């Protein structure tokens, strides 16, 4: 069965498939001609490259995000046909049969390893799968992987929400020896279009796309949300939303409500979520900063603007005000004592 018949069987038109390939080319700023290469690579990929999807300390939200897009979506099709050898949530097999599929794939090597969820750093026993440390399972799979994709905030640098727990969850990049093999795709959950585009790019080019210092593809994480925010004009004019119930403030800047846009790099303002339906700030919710390594521990509470020192959660402004207060009071008291004691004589 050729690729088009296969697509037709899933009620996907050739046109949609070409559209996806063009979108991937556009996402990475490649010339339009690359769409053809991507299509060819995908066609080849459908026969071959296995994907192993491991879940650590996760909520399966990234899998959900990917699978519950409009059905049957292009994303699902591509990942379906990529031959996902092992995926705890969606695989049909279970028990030793499933584990053997994983073992066989690892023996073969050359697969794309997708990590969802974090790996506990504090103690391996925080995450056990089938009686084994998850960390060992991951390290074994990471050894022979062609590329390791950290999907979602938990699987990338800061460990997302598990990173804020006593288990000290951290992403793949903190454990593997060859950091250049890792492609990080943070955000909570992982954005399906970014994941599919990255896998397809890897299959086409045979290497990772251009990455930034956090191993995130610059195509998706190269710009500051704040710089492209549709509410930026309200920010410049100091129109800040202070009262959720005031209809006048509906479109005001969300900075005072804890928006992390000025600290967060992602293309969310340009490429919206849920197949272009909307995105956080568009829906009136402050940016949570989920594409940043500081997320979640460093950015909580999400709905309050504050700059606290990590240890002890002390507000820097409080420290500053105390310092200034002590200095001022000290000066006044010292001056008064000198005046009374008459020490001013030279």
């Amino acid at each position: 069965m050729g690729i088009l018949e296969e697509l037709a069987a899933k009620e996907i038109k050739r046109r949609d498939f070409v559209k996806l390939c063009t979108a991937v080319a556009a996402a990475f700023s490649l010339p339009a001609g690359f769409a053809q290469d991507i299509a060819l690579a995908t066609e080849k990929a459908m026969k071959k490259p296995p994907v192993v999807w491991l879940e650590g300390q996760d909520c399966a939200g990234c899998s959900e995000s990917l699978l519950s897009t409009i059905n049957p979506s292009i994303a699902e099709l591509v990942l379906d046909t990529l031959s996902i050898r092992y995926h705890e949530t969606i695989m049909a097999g279970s028990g030793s049969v499933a584990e053997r599929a994983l073992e066989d794939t690892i023996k073969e090597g050359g697969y794309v390893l997708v990590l969802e969820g974090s790996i506990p750093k504090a103690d391996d026993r925080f995450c056990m799968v089938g009686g084994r440390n998850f960390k060992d399972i991951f390290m074994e799979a990471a050894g022979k992987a062609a590329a390791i994709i950290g999907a979602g905030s938990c699987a990338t640098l800061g460990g997302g929400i598990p990173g804020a727990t006593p288990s000290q969850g951290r992403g793949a990049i903190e454990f593997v020896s060859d950091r250049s093999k890792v492609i990080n795709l943070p955000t909570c959950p992982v954005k399906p279009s970014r994941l599919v585009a990255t896998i397809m790019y890897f299959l086409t080019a045979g290497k990772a796309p251009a990455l930034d210092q956090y191993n995130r593809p610059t195509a998706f994480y190269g710009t500051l949300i704040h710089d492209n925010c549709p509410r930026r004009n309200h920010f410049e004019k100091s129109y800040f939303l202070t009262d959720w119930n005031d209809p006048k403030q509906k479109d005001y800047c969300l900075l005072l409500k804890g928006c992390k846009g000025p600290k967060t790099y992602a293309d969310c303002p340009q490429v919206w979520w849920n197949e272009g339906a909307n995105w956080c700030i568009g829906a009136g919710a402050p940016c949570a900063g989920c594409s940043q390594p500081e997320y979640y521990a460093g950015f909580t509470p999400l709905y309050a603007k504050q700059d606290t020192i990590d240890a002890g959660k002390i507000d820097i402004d409080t420290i500053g005000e105390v310092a200034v207060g002590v200095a001022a009071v000290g000066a006044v008291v010292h001056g008064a004592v000198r005046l009374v004691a008459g020490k001013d004589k030279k």
Partner: protein
Amino acid sequence: MANAKVIAKVIAAGNSEYIVVPRRIYHWINLISIAVLAFTGWYIHAPFATDVLKMGMMQSLHFIFVWVFTINFGLRLWFAFFGKAGDWKVYLKPWENNDSLAWTLRHYLLFQPCLEKRKCRVLQRASYVVIALFYIVQIVSGFQLYWPDNQTLSLITVVSGGLAMVRKVHLLLMWFFVSFAILHTYIAVTYEFGLVKHMFFGVPNEE
């Protein structure tokens, strides 16, 4: 006004009592730019809805005075090391001046009065080295926030723990400078008012 002879004498004596014109100009510009930077920076950090202060205006002012402050400080450093009346020794080797480390320690640790005038300022002079270092940290962290996409600065950002941490450092140092300015003003006005007049308006210090 300063003539070359006086300056030469000042240098020969290793004495910083006479404040040459470049130092006075630096002090004025530094005072104004820090005042503007601290206020606008504080507003950028903790904005509130108002019809008078506008975020865009505050940011523009901040970004203009960033350059004023940075260039001014750069020239001051150049002057300290290569200027005609270069005074880097006063700060980096404070004990070599008129001041004495022994006197200073006795004054601070044993609460003994400073018998000879202006001999106990080793710590005061050294504190300006700390201030200069903090200026550099403040300038670098400021530019990290100003050019978040700059690759070289991004490397520093990663080492220093992300942009959010850089903001915290930048903010904390602002509060430090404000506290320092209060004490600096108090001590100067109460103990060395002659020098204050000298620093600001060039009135010769008669003390």
